[in-house]
């Protein structure tokens, strides 16, 4: 029978022991696995880590605090109920983004009485270039920034969405393809390329 004895200051054996506290999961995969196996601390850990980013993402899709709140609540309840049937993931944020988006878009489509277009964010995600950033070797003049921002506002919702995933969330093309329901990675790259080329023409 393996017996391990340790003192509070004996760090080495602590490593093998620490599994419950937030921050103690060595990877997303292990936290997710523990959650699926019914570990409540893992659930709390995931919830605490991702609530804020999920809320921010949800609000970008649907700018209504109570709608986002309900969607998050339903999503977490649903995940807990189905935990033993969930698949693996090594990227919890991405996994939860997919769940939340699906839920928000589905709710929205139901209100509108629509059945199609489940993957599209209705109004797109809003962003703009800031005038304020202080850069050492600045190339963009104020005038160019105004032009670029006008161009960004004219981009289709899907193009603004793909720029958001790529610039802000740092998702890979494979992930973007999945979360936007695009055909393949080539179409995904093309969409991104077209969006940027449209903006470049303004400068």
């Amino acid at each position, binding site marked *: 029978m393996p017996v391990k004895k340790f003192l509070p200051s004996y760090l080495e054996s602590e490593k093998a022991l620490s599994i*419950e*506290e937030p921050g*103690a999961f060595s990877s997303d995969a292990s936290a997710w696995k523990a959650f699926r196996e019914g570990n409540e601390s893992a659930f709390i850990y995931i919830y605490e880590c991702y609530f804020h980013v999920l809320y921010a993402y949800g609000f*970008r899709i649907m700018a209504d605090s109570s709608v986002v*709140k309900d969607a998050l609540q339903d999503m977490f309840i649903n995940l807990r109920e189905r935990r033993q049937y969930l698949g693996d993931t090594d990227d919890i944020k991405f996994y939860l983004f997919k769940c939340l988006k699906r839920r928000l878009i589905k709710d929205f489509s139901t209100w509108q009485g629509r059945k199609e277009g489940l993957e599209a964010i209705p109004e797109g995600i809003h962003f703009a270039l800031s005038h304020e950033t202080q850069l050492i070797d600045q190339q963009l003049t104020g005038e160019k920034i105004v032009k670029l921002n006008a161009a960004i506002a004219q981009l289709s919702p899907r193009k603004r969405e793909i720029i958001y995933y790529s610039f802000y969330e740092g998702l890979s093309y494979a992930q973007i393809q999945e979360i936007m329901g695009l055909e393949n990675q080539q179409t995904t*790259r093309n969409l991104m390329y077209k969006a940027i080329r449209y903006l470049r023409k303004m400068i």
Partner: protein
Amino acid sequence: MKNIEDFLTHPEFIRWVKRPDKELDAYWNQWRKANPEQLSSMRLAKEILLRTEFDHSEPPTGMKDEVLQHVLRLRERAAPSSSNIGEKHRPKWTWIFWDGLGQMSRVAAILVASFVLGWVLAPISQVNLEPHLAQIEETYIQKITGKGEKMQLTLSDGTKVWLNSSSEVTFPEKFGNENREISLRGEAYFEVVRDSLRPFMVQTHDLQTTVLGTSFNVNTKESGKTKIALLSGKVEVSSSQSQVSLVPGEMLNFDNVNATFDITGFSTSQVLGWKDGVLRFQKASLREVKEGLEEWYGVEIKLKNEKGINWQFSGEYPQQILEEVLESMSYIKDFDYQINDKVVTLTF
């Protein structure tokens, strides 16, 4: 690469600008040197990335906790039969409702019933087993920790046990076919390997905690009190008079003297800090801090000029040696300390 499209559609370039690390720095700096004619496109692409600002909203204060409470509470209510969630519009509990449920839901309900049956039968099988156990008495194992010591063990079924200081567990070297029984004095945390045929039972002074597979903490260190905190799964706790079951997030506080109990929530970090090597005080008096340190580090603490000192001390010490803890405490509470082997003197 020719123009800014190429940079701004390149995931590794974006990563380098937004979240640089050594590897990316090395790569792109080298690339820059090899392609000096691309420098101005590269700078422009970088500038666009750094200037791009996305609308951002924070959740209103309190929303995170409110939603969490709702999520945890709902699970509790739905626990016996989570399948009735889609059945809101039906009459609550009638035969129509029963007939209306799918095949799966019936299975769920029956399973719940058989678990309860298992617990009811458990004491019986235990009684039958008694003479048999007596014969193999020599294969029992006892593990004891002193002050300042902790221990982790893995039982023959794979169940993990973390034993806190001044505690004791006794269990058979190999569990029998009917159940897995272990007795405890002090405090321990269990992560039980699921085995629906052999319930896992923890016997403490007055209580027996029965589980199939779960993680929970049992604490009898405070005299006359037993606390059982459940992290996951389900446990059934029975005294000679009553029986109660816990759902995750609940803690049973049992008073051994009056045989009364109540159920409260608990904070994982407070209840399980000891297991992860975190020494924690919350609004503790000087006496509580003294006893806490003695227990944690296995030392004797002597106080000098402590009359009239009134402490409400809160602090958290992850993985720290005694000297570090005293150093930081003395800074806040203004005392001198002297460590002399196993004897510590605090002078106020």
